[in-house]
Structure formats: structure tokens, C-alpha cells
């Protein structure tokens, strides 16, 4: 085998210019695929981290059964009651994979600056839990500050964060006084004063004129309930999401709790859409690059086959089988692809290092703010790309190599 690899390698050296051109095509192809793959991975991780950590939603959310379908029509009926809430949180905290379990209560109503009122949607979360989740964020999400003003103190009550569109509409800024007006669970009108401590851009434009963030206890007070509409669960590791979902579902059923659990992906349909979109873009680029590489390899090997026809005839005369001829050219092509992949890897690492050094920024679709642009080096993906390149090059070489293998030995030996 070493002799064949040596013959392949030395033949590549003999045709340096042609080998370099093919090597360049493979290296740039490798870099294009791995950089796009690294960028895609960054997008996916950012989407995940933004939802789970920056927006404090956790990996799993537990709802009373039917809440997502019918909860908006009859919120009181589908709220998790105080006793159930305590049981659920207690059971979650017994699981070693769980970092924390925290309740959430979303409410609707009106918000007023004293003279003008408008509709709002408020999300009530525990400030202490929110701060803790934020502190566990990784990557740029940990450094991301999505609001102006100050964050909620752990014991905050009548405080509010207002989306920028809503703040502009009502002329609000951190320090402004506002009034929330909502219907209680029992259908009575309730109104409470609060102080604006922050403004922020909502993740979706349509929410930017509506969305409000308030402490969980304040949301409970506005609804006059001790319950919550969900319990958010933060895990130590994202890979535990599905196994824990299944386990908790069994545990809750055994306790007679009529709940349903959703993963963060299920609750964020935009993630799947963006994921699919990037997968389509990536597949498109992947196919184009692989086609270019395959054509380049076929061209190189075709020329090598023609130039080395007499050599092939000699080897066949010495006893090399037809399959051996194909293996010989395929291994030569695989060497070329391996070297090209190595060059591509160096190119990828160089671009990766440049991105780290220059720290370019951009505004992603789900974060209305400039954030650092990153490219991840994903080991399994680099390995996959290498194997794809080497495998493709070897397979592409088979097409011209078959021609050499099928040629009559006499014709091959007589070739000049």
C-alpha cells in the first residue's frame, strides 16, 4: 500500500502546477464548507442560548395540559395552582440534571402613562431566577445586555421593563411611573402602579409595541392568583433535554399531575424555520462545492490517466489487476484530497483566528442589536468535511480510472 501511496504522491509532485490547482480547489472548497458550517453552528447555538439564557426561558417548560391550545380563552382554568406549582418545582429540583425550576405567568391587559392607555402583553418571571439564568449563559450571550436601564433586583415587585416601541408610544423611559390594568382570574378589573426600570427591543418586531417584562409576584398580584401558567426548567446540559422531558413526564403522571412538557425548540417555532433555512443554504453550497471539487478531480485524474497510460500498461503486464488500477488512481486522488483538506483546514483556522482578532459585529434575525459575529470550529464537522472531500475525490477518480483499467494492455503499452 505504501508503494502505491508513494507512487501517487510522487506523481502529484511531478505535475506540481496541476496538482496545486486541484489542491487549491479542494482547499477552498473545504474552507467554504467548514466556514459556512461553523457560521451555521454559531447561528444555531446563538438561537438556543438567546432563548434559553438571554430570554430566561430554560430548556423545558411545564404547562397544565391544554394550556397552549385553550389557555388564552380561559386562563384561570389552565393555570397551575399553588399546590401543584410547589409539587412540580420540588419534583424538578430533585433531578440532578436540573439547575433550577422557576414559575412564569404571562398576562394581558392595558398599560397607561396616566393619560394614554394601550394594550400590552406582560411576561412575569422571578427576577432572582432570571438573573441566575443570565449568569449561566455562555459565549457572547453572557456579555449580551439587551436592555437600557437597570436589571430587576432579586426582590423586585412593582417594577417593569418596557419594549422600546411601547415606551416610545407612551413616552416612557427608565424612572417613569405607569399603571397596569388587567382582569383578575375571577374577571374583576385590577389596576396597579409600577415603575419603569428598563426599556428593551423585543425579539420580534410585532411585539415591540406590546411587550412588557414584570416580576412574577407582580404578575400574580395583577391576576390575583398564587398560581403560574408554566414552570421553566434550566438544565446543566442541552443534551439532557429530551431524556429529562420523558422522565419528568412519567414522574408528573405518577403524581397525578395533568401536565405537558415542551422543549425550547417546540416553543420557539422560528428556531426550526431558521434551522431549516440554514440547512437548505448549507446543502446548496455543499452540493455546489462538492460538484466543483469532483469536476476538478475528474479533470486532474483524466489527464493523469492519459499521461500515464504506458505506466498503467506496464503495471498491468506485471500483474496489477483492473481493480488495482482503479485503486491506484483513487488513492492518488485521495492523497490529493487529504492534502487539500489539510490546506482547507489551515485556511479555516486562519479565518477563524482573524474573526476572533477583528471581532466583526452584525445584527442577527432574533436579536435586535449588534452582536459579535463568530465562526465555530466544530471538530465533528471538520472530520465530516475531510471524509466527504477524500471520499468524493476517491469516487470521482474512479470514473477516469475505470477507463484506464478497461484499456487493453497492448494499447496501453503502445501509448506514447
Amino acid at each position: 500500500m505504501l508503494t502505491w501511496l508513494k507512487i501517487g504522491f510522487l506523481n502529484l509532485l511531478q505535475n506540481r502546477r496541476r496538482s496545486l490547482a486541484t489542491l487549491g480547489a479542494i482547499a477552498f472548497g473545504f474552507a467554504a464548507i467548514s466556514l459556512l458550517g461553523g457560521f451555521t453552528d454559531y447561528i444555531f447555538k446563538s438561537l438556543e442560548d438567546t432563548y434559553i439564557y438571554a430570554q430566561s426561558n430554560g430548556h423545558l417548560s411545564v404547562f397544565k395540559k391544554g394550556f397552549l391550545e385553550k389557555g388564552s380563552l380561559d386562563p384561570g382554568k389552565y393555570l397551575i395552582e399553588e399546590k401543584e406549582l410547589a409539587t412540580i418545582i420540588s419534583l424538578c429540583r430533585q433531578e440532578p440534571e436540573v439547575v433550577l425550576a422557576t414559575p412564569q405567568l404571562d398576562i394581558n391587559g392595558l398599560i397607561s402613562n396616566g393619560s394614554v392607555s394601550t394594550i400590552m402583553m406582560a411576561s412575569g418571571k422571578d427576577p432572582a431566577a432570571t438573573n441566575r439564568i443570565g449568569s449561566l449563559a455562555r459565549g457572547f450571550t453572557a456579555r449580551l445586555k439587551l436592555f437600557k436601564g437597570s436589571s430587576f433586583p432579586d426582590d423586585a415587585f412593582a417594577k417593569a421593563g418596557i419594549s422600546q416601541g411601547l415606551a416610545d408610544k407612551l413616552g416612557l423611559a427608565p424612572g417613569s411611573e405607569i399603571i397596569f390594568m388587567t382582569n383578575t382570574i375571577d374577571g374583576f378589573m385590577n389596576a396597579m402602579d409600577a415603575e419603569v426600570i428598563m426599556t428593551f427591543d423585543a425579539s420580534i418586531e410585532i411585539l415591540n409595541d406590546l411587550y412588557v417584562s414584570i416580576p412574577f409576584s407582580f404578575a400574580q398580584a395583577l391576576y390575583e392568583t398564587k398560581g403560574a401558567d408554566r414552570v421553566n426548567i434550566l438544565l446543566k446540559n442541552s443534551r439532557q433535554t429530551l431524556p429529562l422531558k420523558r422522565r419528568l413526564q412519567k414522574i408528573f403522571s405518577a403524581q397525578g399531575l395533568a401536565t405537558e412538557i415542551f422543549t425550547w425548540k417546540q416553543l420557539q417555532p422560528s428556531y426550526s424555520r431558521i434551522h431549516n433555512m440554514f440547512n437548505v443554504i448549507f446543502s446548496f453550497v455543499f452540493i455546489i462545492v462538492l460538484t466543483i471539487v469532483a469536476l476538478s478531480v475528474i479533470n486532474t485524474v483524466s489527464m493523469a490517466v492519459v499521461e500515464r497510460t504506458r505506466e498503467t500498461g506496464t503495471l498491468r503486464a506485471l500483474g496489477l489487476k483492473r481493480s488495482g488500477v482503479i485503486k491506484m488512481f483513487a488513492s492518488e486522488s485521495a492523497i490529493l484530497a487529504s492534502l487539500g483538506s489539510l490546506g482547507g483546514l489551515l485556511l479555516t483556522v486562519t479565518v477563524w483566528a482573524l474573526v476572533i482578532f477583528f471581532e466583526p459585529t452584525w445584527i442577527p434575525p432574533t436579536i435586535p442589536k449588534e452582536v459579535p459575529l463568530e465562526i465555530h470550529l466544530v471538530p465533528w464537522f471538520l472530520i465530516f468535511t475531510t471524509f466527504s472531500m477524500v471520499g468524493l475525490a476517491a469516487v470521482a477518480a474512479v470514473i477516469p480510472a475505470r477507463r484506464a483499467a478497461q484499456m487493453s494492455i497492448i494499447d496501453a503499452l503502445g501509448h506514447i
Partner: protein
Amino acid sequence: MQLQSNKRLDPMPLITLKQVKRCYRLGQTSITALSDINLQIEQGEFVAVWGPSGSGKSTLCNLIGTLDNPTFGQIIVNGRNIAEMTDAEQSDHRNHSVGFIFQRFNLISVLTALENVCLPLTLRGESKTVSSQKARSILADVGLETEADRRPDKLSGGQQQRVAIARALVTEPPLIVADEPTANLDSKTAEQIVALMRRFNHSLGTTFIFSTHDEHLLKEVGRRIRLHDGRIIEDIVTTANEKQVC
């Protein structure tokens, strides 16, 4: 011309050709390169196939070396008709039983003399150590011990052909087929190459069949097969062969 034949009658010849015909298609026309060839080659013979250009010498060598298959007739090697062998079986047969020496040496340009000689052994999966050992030994036999690590382009024509002889001999095949092995060499070197082949024929008992159009090289051979227009017109066993056979 009168066809003369003087063959030994061994029960199992090395190669037997029966009514062999080889035609080539050139566009719409068919050209007969060999016709009505009946021949037996015995173990240890030193045979020259000679005749003018286009007489069918190379075609005959190619058929005997199983580089080509006859259009008609049978070529029997070790009791088997080569036309019945698969391509892979023919490859194995060539690797184990036939050595080749070519007119243009046909050494692999990127490999050293030693690596070129190792090639037939590498093809059969021999270990590098054993291959190198055998190749060095045979290179020493052809007087190229000191040139083992040189590439073909650093060797003279005569040296290259000696490397080719070493490559043909390294597997110790019973038969070596050489198609015009001296055509690209000056007359002195050509004589040296034929003498070298003859030496191995004597010392190892290897059967040599080589084609040539140079009558001067025939004095050393044990059997001359003369071709004209694709037919054998003379097949003579000389005293040189008798000496070796005895």
C-alpha cells in the same frame, strides 16, 4: 522458405499454441497479425522470435505473455487455455509465471531502480523487507548494486534495461518474455543484454522468449522462430540450446 522444426517432446510443455490466429480491427478492415501458429515452448529454452517489422513478432510475444488473447485457437499454459481465464486470473498468472522486458524499458519514472524491481513482489503482497532483500540481490546479479537508489532518468539505456531484467527475474518466473529488448540500445550494449539474459537462462533455467529483428543477436540463442507475414516460416533449435538442454 521451408518451415523447419526441431522440438523436444516433453509430456508437459511450458506453453503450447494451437492454431493461433490474431486479427485486429482497424476501422472497417480486419488485419491478420498472426495466423496458423502452432508452437510448443519447453522449460529452459532460450528462444528468439525474429523477422522483419510487421511480421508478428510482438503479437506473438504478447500472446505468449498473456498480455493479449488470440482471436482463434488455443494457448495452453500449465494445462489451462488462457482464453478461459478471467482477467484477474491472467493478471495473477503474469505476476507469478511471466516476467516482461520491454523495448522502452518501461520503468516507473518516479520510483528508484530498487523500487522498480520490487514492484512485481509488491503486487503479490510481499513484505517490503523481503522484496527489498530479493531486489537488492538481483540488482547485484545484473551489476547495478550501486545504482539501486537512482531513478531511471539517472541511468543509461543499458542500465535501465538491466533494471528491467532484474524486475522480470525478481519473482523467479519460469518464463520471461522480452519484446525487442535491444531495439533502443547500441549494438555493444545489445549484445551485453542478450548475454545477460542468456546467463540467467543458464544459471536459473528460466525460459526466455525475445523478439528481435537484429540477426547479429541470434548467434547466442538456442532456438530461432522466424516469422513472416504473421506465419512461422522457420523454427530451428540450434546447438546453443542443445548445450543448455543437455
